[in-house]
Structure formats: C-alpha cells, structure tokens
C-alpha cells in the first residue's frame, strides 16, 4: 500500500471513529438519566455515563459544549455543565464566550432543583474557579432569592457559601439565622415563613414542599393539608400528590391531563385501573397529535414495539421503556393519519385486541423483535421504527439478520430506526441491534423529531460538518431566546 493511500485510509478511520464517538454520546445523552434500569444497576449507569462524558469532553471539547444545544435530557445537560465548569475555561476567547453563553442559556432552561443540585455537586467536587462563581451569580440574578431561600434552602445556602454571595440582608438572615428567635421580616413571604413556625394558618402561604414539613410538625392530617395547599401546588407537585390525595380522600381539582405530554400521560394512564382508561382516549389523541404536528411527513410507517417484561423498567423508572414505546406508537399513528398514509403496529407479544392499545398493555413475555419485524417489513412501508431496550433474547442479532436479508434478497429499502429508551453501560450507548439498524436514544415521545434528526447523523447521511452546522445554528437560536427572555444584551 502506498503511503498516500495509507494516510487516506487512516484519516477515513479517524473520521469514522470520531463520528461513532459523537453518535454514541449524543444518543446516550438523550436516553441516559443515571437511574437504575431493568438490566443494570444505578452504579453501573453512573460510572459508564461519567466516563463517556469525560471522554468526549476531553477529545472534542468544542463539539461537546455545542451539544448543550442538541436538546439532550436534563440529566445529561447538568452533567455537561458540571464537566465544562470543572475543566476550566478554554484559552480561545471566541470559544470561551460561546461556551459561557451556552452554559448560561442551558442553566436558565433547566428546572431550578436540578441547577441547585448541580451547584452542590460542584461544591462537593471543590470546583471554585472564577467562571464557576460567575456562572452561579449570573444564574441567581434571575431568581427570586427570598423564594429560593425557602424552597431550595439547602441549595441556596450551599451556593452562598461556595461562591461567597452577597445576599440581600433579609435573605441572608433567613438562610443563616444567628439564633433560635427570628426578628420579623419585611418581605411578605419570609414573614409568612417565620410566622408559620408558630401559626399553623400561615403555612398555606408557603410553597408546598416547605409547608409539608411544617404541616408534619403541627401534626396536620394529609387531607386537610392537601386541600389547604392546593392553590400553591405546581403542576408537577399536583401530579405527584395524586396517589396520596386519593388515599387520604382529599377533594382536589382533577389532574389536568389535557396538558400532560404524551409519555407522562401514557405512564399515568398505565397506573390507573382499566375502568378509567376510556377517559384517557381523547387526551391521548390530542397529546399525540401535538407531537405529530412537529414531525415531517414520513410516508407509510410500521412500528415494532417491545412490550417484553424488561420494558417494566426499574423501581426508579417504573414502566418507562414501555411508556415510551406506547407513546411513540401513538405519535407515529397520529403522524401518518394526518397525511392519510398507511400505518401498522407490531408487538413482541401481540395485544389481545386493538382496544387494549395503548393502556391495556402490560409488560410481559420475551423480546422477540425479529418476527414482528418480518411482518412489519412485509407490508413494504417507507420507514420502520423499533422501540426497544435492545436486549433481544430469542437469539441475539435476529432483527439485524432479518433486515440484512430483506435488503439483500427482498429488495427492501425502508430505513429501520431503533429508538432505545435505555442506556447500556457496557456499550456506552443505547444498546444497538446490529449494523443494519440505526439506534438512537430517546427519553420521551417528544424527543421523536430530534431523534429523527440525530438518526441522519448516526446513520452517516450527515457528516460531522453538517451536524456541527446544525448544532451551531440551534445553539445560536437557544442563546438568542435566552437573551430575549432574560433581557441580556448580546456581547
């Protein structure tokens, strides 16, 4: 082999390996939440994903930072911000500015509890460089500190200590009291909080999580407490107390299931008894249609949904893989119906009847993807979607083999896209099914448009330059939106 050809070959290999690294990272960033899964424990997930982040950050720093705009899940974005801050600012001023904007925009989009948790982790890791302190201050300028001093007391306290914050006097006094007795506050919320320590009527003026602890101290029963605090609940808190409200007999306004996203709705529906399932029909259709409107026209679609026992997930992610599968199935059904294209759904173990889909489906049976895949491909669709955790256990590699032979012998050209809601620590990615099937991570059905876009890169339709171009444009839009919201002037 000549030297030139050899060099060419080596360069191609580097490009391929780079693309695989980045693809593994991006698809993992969609799926992995660091929680236990059916097949793997929490610790295995944590160790593996931490390594993957370190590896990509060290080898592709600029791209890693730009991935903050890729629409990855909250857990991944939190980890990325932590890693970037811990690694110190890059030397190149342009890159430094771009990263700082992306970090600030990301933090403003993350839920506050997650940001506080991230800051506490930074404190634990003793990361206290100038950029970290500045980032913390910048994020806190947009917050209502009196509110945070109550609701995220531990978090704000940790940040204040760590970043040497100058807090407003009353907030500082609330966070770091000098004695057991507090003088009255002028801030109405802080004053309510002070009074709530001895006056049980005032607890209903506080955020729910703060009030909950005080209610326990006063021995207020659950029913009275929930009815009193209802107006202060956030939407997620309202969802969270649903079961305990039913158990205690509290009369609260019904859950607003019309506003839930499709995956949450499916998961909630699965937890309800069969008699109530009919009430979910219309909200499910609406929620599916909302996502479907964001999808491009896909042509005729066939789906293969894994409803095997492993789709019950773990104690931490009860029914998550199944819920994602059912939600994606509903969305694709709605998306094809919108354009009047053909659609067919196939299951690892077929449901009793069409009426059972989606909420009558319980996770059971083995993972046989190949048989339903044959049926799906036989309808000659324009695209096939498999939603599965990727653990084939009726002979591994069978699904891939089916696709290979369908392409080689039966003239099938449909792309087969595997959407995987589970991160596999052993392969540092959502577990792939084989060479002929594109695997993309997914955490909710709302990720579907994004997953389709990423599939193009994973598959190799887009090269790294296309992908980075897309990321940069997305990042720019994200930063602009954040600037407009926060009222910050462009630098």
């Amino acid at each position, binding site marked *: 082999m000549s030297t030139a050809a050899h060099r060419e070959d080596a360069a191609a290999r580097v490009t391929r390996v780079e693309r695989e690294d980045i693809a593994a990272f991006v698809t993992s960033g969609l799926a992995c939440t660091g929680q236990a899964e*059916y*097949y793997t424990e929490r610790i295995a997930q944590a160790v593996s994903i931490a390594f993957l982040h370190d590896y990509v950050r060290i080898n592709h720093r600029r791209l890693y930072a730009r991935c903050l705009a890729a629409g990855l899940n909250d857990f991944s974005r939190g980890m990325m911000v932590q890693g970037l801050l811990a690694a110190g600012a890059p030397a190149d001023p342009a890159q430094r500015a771009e990263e700082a904007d992306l970090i600030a925009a990301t933090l403003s989009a993350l839920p506050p509890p997650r940001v506080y948790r991230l800051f506490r982790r930074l404190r634990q890791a003793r990361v206290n460089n100038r950029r970290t302190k500045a980032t913390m201050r910048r994020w806190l300028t947009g917050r209502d500190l009196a509110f945070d001093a109550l609701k995220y007391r531990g978090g704000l306290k940790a940040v204040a200590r760590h970043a040497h914050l100058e807090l407003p006097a009353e907030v500082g006094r609330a966070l770091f009291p000098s004695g057991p007795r507090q003088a009255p506050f002028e801030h109405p919320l802080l004053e309510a909080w002070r009074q709530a320590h001895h006056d049980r009527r005032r607890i209903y003026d506080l955020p729910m999580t703060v009030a909950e602890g005080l209610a326990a101290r006063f021995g207020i029963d659950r029913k009275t407490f929930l009815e009193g605090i209802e107006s202060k609940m956030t939407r997620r808190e309202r969802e969270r107390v649903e079961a305990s409200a039913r158990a205690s007999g509290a009369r609260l306004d019904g859950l607003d299931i019309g506003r839930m996203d499709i995956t949450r709705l499916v998961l909630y529906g699965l937890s309800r008894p069969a008699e109530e399932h009919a009430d979910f029909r219309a909200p499910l259709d609406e929620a599916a249609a909302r996502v479907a409107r964001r999808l491009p026209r896909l042509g005729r679609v066939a789906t293969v949904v894994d409803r*095997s*026992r*492993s789709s019950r997930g773990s104690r931490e992610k009860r029914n998550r893989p199944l819920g994602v599968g059912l939600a994606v199935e509903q969305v694709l059904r709605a998306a094809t119906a919108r354009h009047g294209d053909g659609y067919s759904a196939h299951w690892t*173990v077929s449901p009793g009847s069409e009426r059972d889909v989606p909420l009558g489906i319980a996770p*059971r*049976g*083995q*993972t046989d993807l*190949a*048989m339903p895949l*044959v*049926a799906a*491909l*036989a309808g000659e669709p324009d695209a096939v979607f498999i939603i599965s955790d990727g653990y084939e*256990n*009726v*002979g*591994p*590699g*069978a699904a891939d*083999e*089916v696709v*290979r*032979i*369908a392409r*080689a*012998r*039966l003239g099938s050209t449909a792309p087969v896209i595997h959407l995987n809601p589970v991160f596999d620590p052993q392969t540092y990615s959502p577990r792939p099914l084989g060479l002929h099937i594109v695997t993309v991570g997914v955490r909710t059905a709302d990720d579907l448009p994004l997953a389709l876009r990423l599939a193009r890169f994973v598959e190799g339709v887009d090269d790294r330059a296309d992908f980075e171009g897309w990321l940069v444009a997305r990042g720019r839009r994200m930063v602009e939106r954040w600037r407009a919201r926060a009222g910050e002037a462009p630098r």
Partner: protein
Amino acid sequence: MNLDLTGLKGLQPQVAQVWGRVRLVPLVRAQVRGDLRIGLRRYADQFGVVDVGGRPDAPSATVYGGYIPHGMVVGWSTDGAEVAGDTVLEPYEERHPSRALRACGVKHRMIKRERRGARSRLRLLPLHVAMEAYLGVHFGGPDFAWDVYSERVLRHGLTPRVEWITPGYVLPDLHSALRLFEIHEGQCGVLIFVGGHFAGATVVSHPADYRRMHRALIDDFYGKMLAWASWYAPAADPAPVRLDAARVGDWNTLGVELRAARDAWAKVEAGFADSLLGRPANVERAYRMKPFELVRFDTGYTPGEVNHIGEAIVRDDGTVEYLKTYRLSPDQAARGFLLKHLAAHCWQLEEAAAARKQSVAQLIGALERAELAWMLKGHIRDKYRT
C-alpha cells in the same frame, strides 16, 4: 412403570436466555389442560424435619431433616375438568405428627394427602421426594453380616446419612438470571445450565403456576459442583442468529427460515440436557392419583457420567405434568454406585472388586474417596492400605 423423558412430550424448548454463567432454556407447553394445578407453600423456617416413617399419631424413629424452604401443593381432578387456580393457593394448616413435635415444625411425610371437605390435595416437598429415595439407598446397611463390616453399620445401618447441597441463592449469577428472565407466553418449565453444566429441569402443568414457581427456583437446591461452576467456569455469550440468505425467496420464507433457525438452535441447547432427557431412568411409583402418577426416578449412579435424581407427575398418556430434578455431584453418584454395587455382590468385597477388575485395596480406596470407608472395620482398612 414407564417414564419417558426423551424430548419431554408436549413441551417445546425455546432459545435460551443467558445471564453471566447461567443459561435458562424455556420450555413452552403447546396444550394446557388445566386439570392439574400446582401451588407453592412457603415455610417460616428454611430448616425442616420430616417424619418419614410412622403415622400421624405415633411418630417413628426415622426422621429426614434438611433445607426445606417450601413445599408444593397439587390439586387435580380425576375427570379432566379444569381445576381453579386458587385451589392450590389457599393455605392449609399443616397437621404435625404430635403435639410435642409441633413446636419445631415437623412435617409428616414427604407426600401427604390433605383433605378438607370434598376437595383433596397433595402436599409434597419438592426435590426432597427424590432426595429421600437417594438417601434411602441401602439405608439399612449390609444385608449380610460379613465380619469386614463395622459393628455400627451392621447394627444401625447408614444412619445418619448426610449429603451436602447448595441452595440456589448461593450461586452468584442465578439470582440475577432468574430475576431478569423474561418468561415466555405459555411457558411451563425451564432447563437450568450453570457454567455450561446442566443443573436440572423444572416443569409444571400450567403457565400461571410456572410464574409463581419461577421465583421459587432460587430457593431450590442444587449440586455442590454447580457452586464451583458458577464461580469458575467460563461465561459464554449467546451465539448470534445466522440465516441462510440463499434460501429466502419471499417474506413468507423469511419468517419460516427464522423460525426454523430458532427451533434448531433451541433443540441444540436442549440437547445439552441429554444426560437427563436422552436416557432411560429407574422409576419408582410414589403416589397414584388417577389419572396421574407421582414417581421418583434416578438415571443410575454411573461413575464418570452425569447423574440425576428427580420426581415427576406423569399423566397416563405419558405427558409430564410436573418434573423437578437434581444433578448429583460426582461424589454423591459414587456413593450411590458403590452401595448398589456392593449390594449386587452380596456385600462381598472380593467379589465386588473382581467385578470391576480391581483389587480389594482399590475398592477400599474408592470407598474411602466416597467417604464410605467407615462402614469397614478399622483393621481391615489398615490391612489393605499397606
């Protein structure tokens, strides 16, 4: 008595699920009749004592003690009518042989008919039915009082006869393998392999019963050597499926090819259980309950081969409705073999040794290795040792 385990009539092996060193081959029943149901009864204590001799009111001297974490309850109908699943779920109060023994949870007999009103069920202690038969091999000691045998064995027999077993929860990968296993639709049984060694088979009659029984597999006991295999044998990944592209002409044949490849592979995997499923067994009837029969069996105690003991409920047409087997470890097989061999030669050492083309010293060496040399008088052992 006939018991035909070859190919396990009515049960179709499926492709194995592998976790670490444990390989589980599911067995799916094509036709479920539902006239025999098996339930599980957990005992408060892992250690149990069974009175295997006397009547409920008069305890005997023969007692079987061991690791008995659960029992099984069998309900059946004689006319082929379906038995409701909850017949075998409802707990019965076990009657103990005597008031004095009630305190330590003594059970009466391995297999016991329980009656309440019109319904009648059978309670049996899984694997112990077979184990009892194995421990009972020439339990009474030599039938001829040759003077080479010690006073003790001539007077009291082999008591106490002790064997070591390994509870499932001691095997490292088994717990995860069972927990993560995805039970097939219609699955009624499983073949368990640990580190490439066939550990045993479990079959029940109804898929719903299997679901309950599956979780109890961790509480069953396994041979001593499987503990070794579960730590040290190499773990093998499952082989990927390969299809022959040339034989696929249309979508239909693709499905057919796939099914054929899977069936073939499942057959190969089930074939690794040939030491049990491909061999005639010595069968003994333990209980008759028309149209079923509870039997216990062994595949012989042949040195150098894989030997199993087990128990089964067989329908009159030969269908296996219940099966549980235990793989003897090599030393256990050797003990069974030597006892039977000596008995076959009227307990005469010279004759028994000659039949194996051995010297008496070699036979005594074998007895020593099998931890049976205590049957002989000390000076006899010394004489042949030098």
